[in-house]
Each structure stands twice: as C-alpha cells, then as structure tokens.
C-alpha cells in the first residue's frame, strides 16, 4: 500500500510541476506572430512598415552623402569619432562596417515588414476596405522604395551597384530597378484618388526617379510630368524625439560627426540668396577651424523628404536637355530657383543641371548616384563607390558563399 501511495504521490508531483511551470503571466511588451493576422491589427502593422521606412531613409541619405562628396568626416570636429564613418568618407570600407550593416538591416526589415503585411492581408478576410487599401498602398510603395535604395546605394564590390533580397543571389542594380518598378506599379493600383490624386503622383515621382537612374530618360520624363508638382508637399518620412531623424545625432545639432563640404558655403558666398536653399550653419573644430554642418534638419523631429516636386522639375530639366529641349529645361530649373527666391538663369547646360541638383537635392541621398551618372566620382580608383554589403550578409547567405 505504501508503495502505491508513493507512486501516486510522485505521479501527482509530475503533473503538478508541469502545470506549475506553464501557468505564467503573459508578456506585455511582445505579441506572438499569429495574433497579428487579424483585421483589427491592420493599422498597427501599417504603421510598423512606415516606421521602419522612416528609420531607413534618412540614414541612407546620410551615409550615401558621406560616401559622396556632399559630406565629410573630420575628427577635428568635436564628437566626430566613428571609425565606420571615416571608412565611408574615405571609401575604404571594411567588411564589418556596422554603420552600413545598420542601414542594410533597417532597409531589409522595412521590405520584409511590407511584404509580410501583404501576406497577412491575403489571410485576413474581414479587413476594413479602406484600411486594407492603405495598407496595400504603403506596403507596395515601401517594398518598391527599398528595392530602389538597395539598387542605388549598395554593392558587393566597389563599383557594381546592386543588392540582395531575402538571402538570395546578388541582383545587379539594373534588375533591381525593374523589381522596384513592379512594386511601384502595384502601389499605383492601390493609390487613393482622394486628396487630388497625391498618392498617385508620389508613386509616379518615384517611378520617374528609377527610370532616371536606370538611364530610361524618356520614361523618366513621362512619369516626372505626372509626378509631384509645385504646391505639392514633399513625400516625407516622419520622426519624433523617440525616433529621431538620423541627421540630428549623426550630422546635426545633436552630434556632429558629418559636416558638409565647404563648397556649400561657397555657393552661399557667391549668391547669398542660396542660403534659402542650402541650409547650413557653422561649427568650430578643436583646432579652431570653422566647419559647416547641415541645418536642413535642425530638430530631431524634422521630416526627411523622400521625394519632392523639385526633384521632378530637375528630372524634367535633365531629360529635356538630353532631348535637346533647352527651353523646357531652363523653365523647369527656374521654377525651382524661383521657389527659393533665386534669380532666373538665362542659359542651361548639363553642368548647370548637375549643380542645381547638388544644391536643390542637398542631403536627400542623390549626390552619390549623380557623381557616378556624370562621371564625377571624387575618390581614388579602387575605393568603394557603393556602400559595401558586409560580411554579416555574406557569411549568412548561402547564395553569396556563406
């Protein structure tokens, strides 16, 4: 009888232990994946896609600006310390550059979040139609934008731009641009017709940019003509002090690691009205040297323009000039200049357009591609002309030998 009792007691203890360890309180700051596949979570998920887009785009602008001749890293500037920034500035990028890895991570997450949301929407049958449309529009736009960024900014070797998606093989920029266009076309299909068709014009603008970068000037012109127009707000990423614009603590008033090239001050010296277009301020180096840092994003909450009507005007100007329509080119450039209170130009050539892009699209992530498009790369041969896809990707990606 005693043995039976002991057996029963031990058996009871087994049951009690198992029950005990499973009876724990739920987490409050995390939720299991399957619980988000629900109509009530569509807005929450959409905001997640937008949020990751925001943490990607300004950082991409800053690092690509650093690799280009737009910005400079100089340790004479107080608090400029990151060796990874110096590598970028000099184009001597090591495979473990964690600043670039951080951007690559954000960019890939934004793409994944967007595509994951599209997948979930396929499984949610009772979503609010408008919420679903907005979610689809956002997701397709962001998945297209991230592909364009991947194609424009990254590369596996110093001179060949392109990217990697979902641990796949390397995709050259030309192919990646096509993938971006496919997603933009899907976004166009989900663009709202409210608000005067603003969403459609945003997507057309992004398509115009891809065509321009891919060298399809005719298509670029067509879409730019249907893109954002004067009076349209820039399509911008939004920030808060909790999730600040990267420029603020990377190359701004919060911490100045990146300063802008001296030529931007020279532009203002040559024409003081340029101060309306080129927003910079001084900062003194440890040696007493006066440097210039950007003031375009003076606050942590300053929005970052992803695409603007000014960019469309400059695309129209460039494509027109390439099409020998200098009159159209000149008027497009002058419309931008007029916006900033600058005098009109009477003649135009490609160098002028390059300079106008340099000034107008200041810190918006275009200079790195423009330098290469116009054969103006400023660093020695053999240095990196793209942000290097690092060993963290290569080692974990079997398609890249990992």
């Amino acid at each position, binding site marked *: 009888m005693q043995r039976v009792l002991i057996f029963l007691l031990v058996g009871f203890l087994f049951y009690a232990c198992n029950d005990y*360890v499973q009876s*724990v309180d739920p987490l409050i700051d995390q939720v*299991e994946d399957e619980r*988000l596949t629900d109509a009530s979570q569509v807005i929450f998920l959409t905001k*997640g896609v937008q949020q990751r887009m925001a943490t990607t785009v300004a950082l991409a602008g800053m690092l690509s600006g650093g690799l280009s001749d737009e910005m400079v890293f100089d340790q004479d500037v107080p608090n400029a310390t990151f060796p990874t920034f110096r590598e970028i500035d000099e184009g001597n990028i090591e495979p473990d550059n964690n600043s670039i890895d951080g951007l690559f991570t954000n960019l890939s997450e934004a793409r994944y979040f967007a595509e994951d949301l599209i997948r979930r929407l396929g499984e949610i049958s009772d979503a609010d139609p408008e919420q679903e449309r907005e979610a689809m529009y956002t997701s397709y736009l962001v998945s297209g934008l991230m592909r364009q960024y991947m194609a424009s900014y990254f590369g596996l070797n110093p001179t060949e731009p392109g990217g990697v998606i979902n641990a796949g093989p390397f995709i050259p920029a030309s192919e990646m641009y096509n993938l971006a266009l496919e997603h933009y076309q899907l976004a166009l299909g989900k663009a709202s017709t409210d608000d005067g068709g603003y969403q459609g014009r945003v997507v057309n603008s992004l398509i115009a940019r891809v065509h321009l970068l891919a060298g399809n000037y005719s298509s670029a012109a067509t879409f730019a003509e249907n893109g954002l127009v004067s009076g349209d707000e820039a399509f911008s990423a939004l920030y808060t002090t909790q999730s600040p614009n990267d420029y603020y603590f990377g190359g701004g008033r919060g911490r100045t690691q990146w300063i802008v090239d001296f030529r931007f001050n020279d532009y203002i010296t040559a024409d003081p009205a340029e101060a309306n277009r080129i927003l910079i301020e001084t900062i003194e180096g*440890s040696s007493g040297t006066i440097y210039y840092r950007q003031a375009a994003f003076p606050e942590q909450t300053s929005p970052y323009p992803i695409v603007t009507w000014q960019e469309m005007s400059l695309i129209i100007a460039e494509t027109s000039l390439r099409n020998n329509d200098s009159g159209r080119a000149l008027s497009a450039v002058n419309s931008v200049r007029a916006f900033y209170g600058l005098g009109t130009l009477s003649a135009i050539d490609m160098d002028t357009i390059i300079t106008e892009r340099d000034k107008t699209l200041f810190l918006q992530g275009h200079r790195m591609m423009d330098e290469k498009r116009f054969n103006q790369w400023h660093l020695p041969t053999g240095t990196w002309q793209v942000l290097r896809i690092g060993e963290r990707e290569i080692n974990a990606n079997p398609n890249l030998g990992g």
Partner: protein
Amino acid sequence: MLSNIKKCYDARWVLMAFALFLFSAVSLQAKSAPELKEIKGVVVDADLNEPLAGANVFVKGTNVGSASDLEGKFSFVYNASGEFTLVVSFIGYKKYEETYSLSADVSNLVVKLQEDIFQTEEVVVTGIANRRSKSVAEVAVSRLNVDQLTEKADYSSLNQLVNGKLAGVQIQPASGNVGGGFRFFVRSGGGLNGNEQPIIFVDGVRVDNSQLVGFFTGGQGVGTLSDINPDDIENIEFLKGSAAAASYGTNGSNGVVLITTKKGRISAGSRGGVSVNYKLTLGSNEQSFDYDPADFVTANDANNTFRSGDIQQHNINISGGNNFIKYYTSFEKRDEQGIQVGNYLNRHNLRANIDVFPSEKLTFTATAGFTASESDVPQNDNNIRGWLGNTLLFASSYAFTDSLSIANLRNNADTDRFIGSFQASFIPRKNLEVKASIGVDNSDLRWDEYLRSDLFYPNTVNGQRSVWTRSNRQITFDLNARYSYSLMDGRLQGTSIVGTQFFDRDVRTAFFQVQNFSSPLITDIGAGADLQDKGESKLNTRDAGIFTTHSFSFNDTYFMTVGLRNDFASSVGENAPDIFYPQASVAMRLDKFNFLPSTFGLFKLRAAYGETGILPALVDAIPYLWSAESGGYGAGAVLNAIGNRNIEPERVKELEFGFETELFGNYALEFTYYMQSARQSIIDFRNALSTGQTATAVPFNIGKVDGKGLEALLQATPFRSRNFQVDLTLTSSWQTNEVKDLGGAQPIFDGFDVNVTKEGLRNHEFYTFDVIGARFNEDGTYAGSEITDERISFGNPIPNYTGSFALNVNLFKNLNVYVMADWATGHSIFNLTKQFAARFGNVPELNRLEYQLGFTDTPPEGEEGLQQFSPGSAAYKDAANRYAQLDFNVDGAYIEEADFLKLREISVSYNLRNLVQKIQAANFVRNLTVGFSARNIWTTTKYSGADPEVNFDGARSLSRGQDFLTLQNPKVYAFFLQIGF
C-alpha cells in the same frame, strides 16, 4: 503558451498540502520513562590541552545543548530516556561523538578535540538536501568560512571574499567601480550558454545575481550581489560543477553557490546568553596605477581625475538565545566612495535570523535580510561623457565633454531588497527528517539619470532626465524528506532523500527619458519638453523539479550516491516537456586499510558523474514576437524576437576524479581532475541581413564544447604551539576548453569583433587580424602595414592557470598577521584604451614615429630636436616597422599578454581582550580587536595598461577582457575596531 491566463489553481498550494500531509501523517514516537541527566564538563584542544571557548555541545538528534564558556566549561540538563550520544563540535576541530548509557556519569567530562586542519569533519553540502562530512563526500566541495575572514579584514562585497581563495573559482570584477558587477568563471566554464554564472542561494533562497545596467554609463552596471553584507555571512559553499550540482538540475551547470548567514549562538563569555558585537571600519580607496606621460600625452589629466575615496562602515550585531530560541540580528551602514567623482555606495543592511526549537523534533528557522542601498555609477568605458574617455583619447583633454559636465552627471541606482526564508524541520522518527522551506528575494530598484540643462552633453538637448524602475520577485519553495537506515548489522548505512523544488521569478521594468528642460531649477520628469524614450516589460518564468538521491556507506570505507532529477520549465520548447538529469558518485577511504602508514590520517579516492543544464531564454521557443515601436506615425508593429519552437536546454555533463589526504596531522592535500562536456548548446544563427528577419538571431541546439581542468589545494600548519602558529594555504588550478561544434554556424563574435566562439578554439578566444610588418613604396616610403590574410588566435581573456598563496601567523594568540597573493597566467587582454588613444594622436611614441617618418612636419611638443629619417635608411625601416606594429586599425596589435601577480590581501590585527579584562571596570568586554587591512597593494603584470582584470562592457556581455577606458581596481586601506560584550 504565454498568453494563457494565469490559472487560479496553483500547484504550489498543492505541494504545501503535501507537506502538511507529511507532517501530520507521521506519528510521533512513543516515549519511555525519562531520567534527568546533568551533563557537565570541559572542552580542550587535544594537543595543547587548552580550553576551547564557544564549542557547541549537544545531544545528537535533539536541540538540547550548550556552548562552552571562556574556560571551556559547559553544563546543561537532558531528559534522557535511554542511551544517548553527545556531540561536541567547534570550527576548525574534528567533531567529538560519544554514546553514553543512561547510567553513565556525565557530570565531569573532559572532551578533547583534535584540530581539523583540512576541515574533513566539517559537514558540507554535497547536493540539494544532502549534507555530509567532507571526509566521506564523493564530490569536490569548497567551503569558505567567511566569519573567520571578516574578523581580520575589511571586505566590501562577495567578490572580495571569494577572490583567490577557492581552486577552480575565478572572479573577475568588471571594473574598479564601488558596487559594480563581477563575473564568476567556474572550472572550465560549463557550457556555452547562460552567462557562465552559478546559481546562488542565500539561506535556501535562490537570489538575483544580475548585473543591472540602467542608463548609459559606458558599459558598467550595478552588481546585485553587492547588496549582501559580508559581515553577515557565516560561510559560502561551492558546488563547482555538474557532478556535484546535478541534484540542483537545470541551471546548475556552472555550479551552485550556497551562502549561509550567521545564526544565533551563545558566545563564550557572553552574559545571559547575549553577545553584542560592534565593528567600526575606516578606510580609503586609492588609485593603484598611475598613467605615464610616456604612454599618453594627457596622462596627468587622467591622473587628476582620481581622488581618495573614503570608506566608513558601522556594523553591530546581537546574538544569543537559549535551548528554545536562538537569534542573530545585525545592522550595517557602509558608506564608500570610489576613486573618481560620481562613484559611491551607501548601503544599509538589517538582518534578523531566528531559530526556534519548540520540541526536540521540531525546528523553525526564519531568516530576514533587508537592504537599502544607493550607488552612483561613474562615467567611463566606451563613453564620450566619461572621465577617462575625455582625458586619455585626445592630446587635448575634455574634447567631448568638459569636466564640470562630467562631475555633475548623476547615474544613481537606489535599491530596496528583502531576502527572507522560513524553514520548518521535523524529525518524526529518529531516522526521518522532513524539511519544508519557502523563501523570497524581492527587490525594487529605481535608477535615475540626470544631465543638467545648463551644461553641455553630447547627444543631449538642454539636459536629460531618465528613470528606470525594476521590480524583481523570486520565490523558492523546497520540500524534501530524508530517511536514514541501517542494514547488514550496521555495516551498510543508507540515506534516501526525495524532494521537490519550485522557483518562480517575476521581473517588471518601466522606464522613460526626456530632454529639453527650460530651467535647471526644475528637474522633474514633467519639465522635459521632449520625450526621448519609454517602455515597460514583464517577464514571469517558472521552473520546478522533483529529485531523489540515495547514499550508501559500507563499513565507513566505501561510499556511493545515485540520484535523479526531473525538471520542468516555462521556457523550453515542444520537444522538451521535461528534462531528466542523472548523477552517480563513489568514494573509498584507503586510510581504513592497513597497507597505508599511519601518517595518513585520511586518504580518500573519489569519482563523480552528473548532468545539469542551462535553460533557453523564456521567449526562445516562440517563433516570432512583435513589439510596438513609437515614431512619427504612432506606434507600429516591428519584429522583436525570432525563436525556435523546438528549443531545449543545453546539457552539461561532468566527470570528476580526485583524492583528499591528510598527512602527519598537519598537512592536507586535495586534488581533483574533471572533464566537462556540453551538448545541445544553444547557438544563435543570424539570418542574413537581407531577410529582414534579424531582430534577434535564431536559437538552435547544435553546439558542443568540452572542458577539463585540475584543481589542487594544499593546507599546512607547519608550526603550532601555545604562542605561535603558522597556517599556509596554496591553491592552484588549470583549466581549458574547446568549442567542438557550432553546427555550421559562423563564429560568434562580441561587439568589438575580437572575442570569438569558434570551433577548435577556447571559448572567448581573442581571434582577429595581426600586423606582419611595414610595406614600402618603390621610393622607400612607408606604404602602410601588412596584415595577416586570416584571423589568428591571440590567447584568451580567461586565465589558464590561477593560484593563490595565503599565510596566516598567530603570535601569542592575540596578534594575527595574514597575507594572501594570487596570480593568473595564460591571460590576455585587449588594450582598446591605447588603440583608440593611438587613433586620436595621444600616444607619444606614435606621434614621434609619424614625425620621424615624415608624415608631419611638426615635431611633437617638447621634442623639437627629433630627427627625421630618410626613406630607405635602416632607421626609417625600423621606425616604419614599429609604426606598423602600432597600427590602430588592426586589433591584434593591441592585444597583450596580461599574466599577473597581485598581493591581494594583507591584514594585521591584535586582540586586546586579555589586556582589557584585567581592568575591573571593563571586564564585561569579551572581545576588543584593532586591526589594519589592505587590498590590491602591489601588482606585477605583463599588461601595459591600468588593470589586467577589467572589462569595459560590464560583467555579463560577450566582450571579455577588453580594457577600454575602464576604471582600475583600487588599492584599499582600512583600519578596524571590533568590540564584543
């Protein structure tokens, strides 16, 4: 799994009911007619024939007894109902045990105790609920009698107590911060998971051993074990590996530390059974390493950041009792300043321990310790707001943050903590004991950070206020029954234990941070205009186990124990609903055979095998977890963790062999060899970044690591006489390990990409690129450094060999001198401080070379006559090669050998008791001791930096042995006065 609503039905109460059932079901043994016996006598040292004051004299199996007085005399009454066994025990002496008949004359006993140099008779823990004397233990056990240490030196925290005293146990303080964190490294490190930290029990309560890092200080945090008052600790026992700790099951693979606080006792010479002891300590922390201007241009600026840090401690305890109740209460107040502004510890400790003996068969024990501590964590390490970061990096100091701003930055951790337990022990029959205990470790921490709005701080807009709160509650419940029996006419003795253990942990945190204050006069969190960050978390985990062990002793010569444990945990995946751990051990006393000469007082061979584990993290078994991230669009869903629903605990197996011997009565040697093997180690696979699924790496049970080591302990008392005694202790340990398999995963690196977990190497090995030499252009000018194509090994931040030597000399019984030195070899450290100083032009040698090589036309300040070399010349080549060897872009150039020898502890104390007791008015003074102790007073090391024992990233990170502007451990001087009534 986690989203289940907590069930009302709670298994703990079922187990409590089970306990009550055991208590009530076992009938009390019938008593025969008793006879009142007066037991009187004297306890003396068998060799010196001197009385021993404070020996514990009691009747075996009861709570009836007394303590010997200053003359060694004892006297008490026992209601005997038959033959009984008298036990006399005294720390440092072998136990006396003698059985007397009812008619025996016990009114004039002379009990002679033999000194127990090797503490072989001391009862030690050999497993959960298992206690046996060291002379028969089948596993290597280590015990530290802390009360003997704290009598003769000042110890601030647990790590200082343990450091250098136990073979196979390394303790590395992450920095010289007062109140800072430290890290254990036990044997060869166990498995790959779990931070390599042992689980720690205080009076049976599993306590929090976290290093808490609130707001940014550069890398360091606050060690939760710093809350414990060393003066309250009676002893610390270590079960160092899986072989000994198997009965503790999951999470025991890095050993188990059992801390026992002081119990009430009737001290010899106390009046009315009450003794009062007061200890005053006054001292200072001092800079132990001066930075040299030959190494850093700004060395003097760095040296000027140091100060003398005052130490003041008051400790009072009251202890006493009688046959019914014994109590120990204490109060401690310790104020200690670190060696830099912004570092202090202010600790208050209250303790009350009570033992109640309502009957001979029933004991209740309650322990309660309350701590209120406040510590300020200084700014250093990887930190542009740090003292050393602003005085050692650039040739011009305070380039990031000025000294006024640093001095006014506050990072303050305020903790209230209660650790308490209640235990009931019931002996319903002579050979059956049932114990139940429940314990709580409850702590509330508030961490405040304040950066003044009228001072400049990088990354900060008009000041910053941050608050982090953490509430940690841990409940431990134990229930076990121990049954002893005898077979084969008493030649075979057996003990069987069955029990269960439950553990519940609940951690809640919340934080918020704001910036942009308009006025430094108003600093509440509501006055900050910009919310920077906020968050909250709750983590509830439980584990439980049932266990049984069976120990046998045959002819007091052969010993064997077998045991099993079955564990359950909240955090394991679907493949591991429960976890099974076996253990087995044997020992043999060769001294019981005739072939050994009588010079061997003891010679025991032993072997033990056991398995333990390390649990995965709570969320490791959940495939995807999403959280909310706030930003410009509101709060959006972002991927937060990626798990593996099949995850299981890592399993660690250990086999150890060893022996203990005692020679000539005054030499003792202990030796242990062990092999550890971890399988199913959890290796985190990082998805390719391009997947977008990189919030965390994904855990898999695919790793393997093997370890082995040797431990030796030699104790000797070569001289012992009435007025002169010398005790020596020598410990020596060797350990190594090798990562055998990562299951195809890439090597795992720390944040600075130098410490690696890689197949074929020791865990945490420094593994990076090195400089081969200089490269030259065709014109002979320097063309950069030539670097190895592959990474190579640079040694390990965890020493292979460690050891210590301690000498204790006692003169005329009153003067005591104690010295302890410890060393480590096979030790490397990454000198990031020098590397970054070189990068920013603050290393004079590099600056000279740059001028000599013509990289600059301006000679370093003060070296205007320095010669420049011509490219192609021998001097140029030498300079270029040296310059290449200091290439600050190559980590390997800055990893240094860091073997060291430290004179760790010195103390001199004198007991004035005899002098005082000659004064009639002061004869109530039982003890009056004055002393001086010092710590870290001399170091010799191969390392060129400040301290070979630090790590910039605290005591729990993957980074190991990396000195990056990290605060050195200080020299400590202390005077103390102890008085007892």
